[in-house]
């Protein structure tokens, strides 16, 4: 790349800064995406937790709020960092930023763990795919969860071996997950899948940190993900034609959006 290690670190540090900024944008009650399909859920969760209505505990709450907030920020044309994609941009920052704050991890360590996540992502991109159009949602929210699980292990002092098992465990849990966005937009079910992806990463990291291993090595899991992605029919690969997108409610929503589109068109 022709850049000094210092410049590369600074660029990643800037990515971390934008990740932090992207949370605040969506933590408001009244935000809405251009289609009107999404917005306001992160705030709803934030309020519920503030009022003591928590089921899963403070740490998980904070992760979930961030994952929803960043994904909603993306849907509402906020500024985000694709990680690895825009549709899955909430998972990695939700996990890393929460643990950094709650466990008092130095910022440099958090930024370095983003390199761990990137390295895992590069392996997945090379051996399989990080695009929903090619490999389904397993390739987007699945890859993000695998990256986040490995990065969290690394940041919390686990070994590289543990990090790779964390990635394998996270990926194994979402093999076959299809990409079926309603009306073809990065909103339903993508935003909530960011919350699920973050929780998947936490579970995988926790298991791996306890020394639990995936008997199928991570490289083979990634190869399996590639094979499963290739087997997915096109209607389940980001075309907005199958799965949830083909349900009666989704079709109705899509029709309403496109009707409004043609009404507002500046022709």
């Amino acid at each position, binding site marked *: 790349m022709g850049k000094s290690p210092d410049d590369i670190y600074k660029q990643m540090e800037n*990515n971390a800064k*934008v990740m932090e900024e992207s949370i605040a944008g969506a933590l408001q009650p009244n935000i809405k995406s251009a289609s009107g399909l999404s917005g306001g859920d992160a705030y709803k969760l934030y309020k519920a937790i503030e009022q003591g209505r928590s089921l899963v505990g403070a740490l998980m709450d904070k992760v979930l709020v961030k994952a929803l907030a960043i994904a909603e920020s993306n849907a509402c044309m906020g500024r985000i960092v694709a990680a690895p994609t825009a549709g899955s941009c909430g998972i990695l920052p939700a996990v890393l930023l929460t643990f950094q704050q709650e466990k008092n991890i130095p910022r440099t360590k958090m930024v370095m763990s983003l390199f761990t996540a990137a390295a895992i992502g590069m392996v997945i991109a090379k051996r399989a795919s990080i695009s929903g159009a090619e490999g389904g949602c397993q390739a987007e929210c699945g890859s993000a969860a695998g990256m986040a699980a490995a990065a969290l292990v690394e940041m919390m002092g686990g070994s590289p071996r543990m990090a790779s098992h964390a990635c394998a465990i996270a990926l194994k849990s979402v093999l076959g997950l299809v990409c079926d966005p309603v009306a*073809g937009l990065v909103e339903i079910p993508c935003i909530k899948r960011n919350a699920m992806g973050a929780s998947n990463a936490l579970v995988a990291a926790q298991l791996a940190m306890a020394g639990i291993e995936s008997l199928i090595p991570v490289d083979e899991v990634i190869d399996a993900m590639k094979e499963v992605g290739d087997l997915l029919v096109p209607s389940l690969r980001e075309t907005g034609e199958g799965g949830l997108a083909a349900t009666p409610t989704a079709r109705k929503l899509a029709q309403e959006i496109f009707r409004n589109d043609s009404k507002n068109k500046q022709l």
Partner: protein
Amino acid sequence: MDVFDIIGPIMVGPSSSHTAGAARIGKVARNLLGQEPVEAIIELHGSFAQTYKGHGTDRAIIGGLLGFEPDDLRIRDSLAMAAQKGLSYTIRKVNLKDAHPNTARITVSDYSGNTVVVTASSVGGGNIVVKDINGLEVDFTGRSHTIVIPHRDAPGVVAAVTGLLSSNHINIGEMKVYRKRRGGDAIMIIEVDQAVSQDIAYQILCWETRHKRWVKAQMIYISRWKTMQR
């Protein structure tokens, strides 16, 4: 591929291909015009045409035409800003033959009526490929510093340009020349490792003035994406 292809780009949501890539396509059209645009016809094909409202593809392309990078939050308000800046635009859905699903054809003009027609596709992760300029088939991504020179197909043109670049210590990474027919309209796409200064652009223009080998008296220069170095 490097780490910032995975953690990155920084962009205005919601979709790297429908929003970030669309903004880059708009920016390329602006750079190819080389002047402030006053009129644009934006034709959207495939998934761009189907989902442009929900993905803000229209706002992103117009933001790019106004000079915004994919991470510029002004993209959200670009439709209103276009009116303020005197850019009128039309958005149409089209069916382009054999085109990538996320393709736009932009016809953009400046105040003196110079017009450029650019067709480009958004191929994923915010990356784009420019496919056609003024009816000449091309193929470049804009990730490197790129010099685009429309010219007349004649002996010596390529040698003159590459000679000027060489004497200015500009290293050529990739270079392609396309022409409509022998002796007809042609276009040179040169991807270089260093930024090209105004002075070098001027030298190439001077050569043009002496030799009259250009279709139009202009040199077009597309700078590299800036998003990654923000």
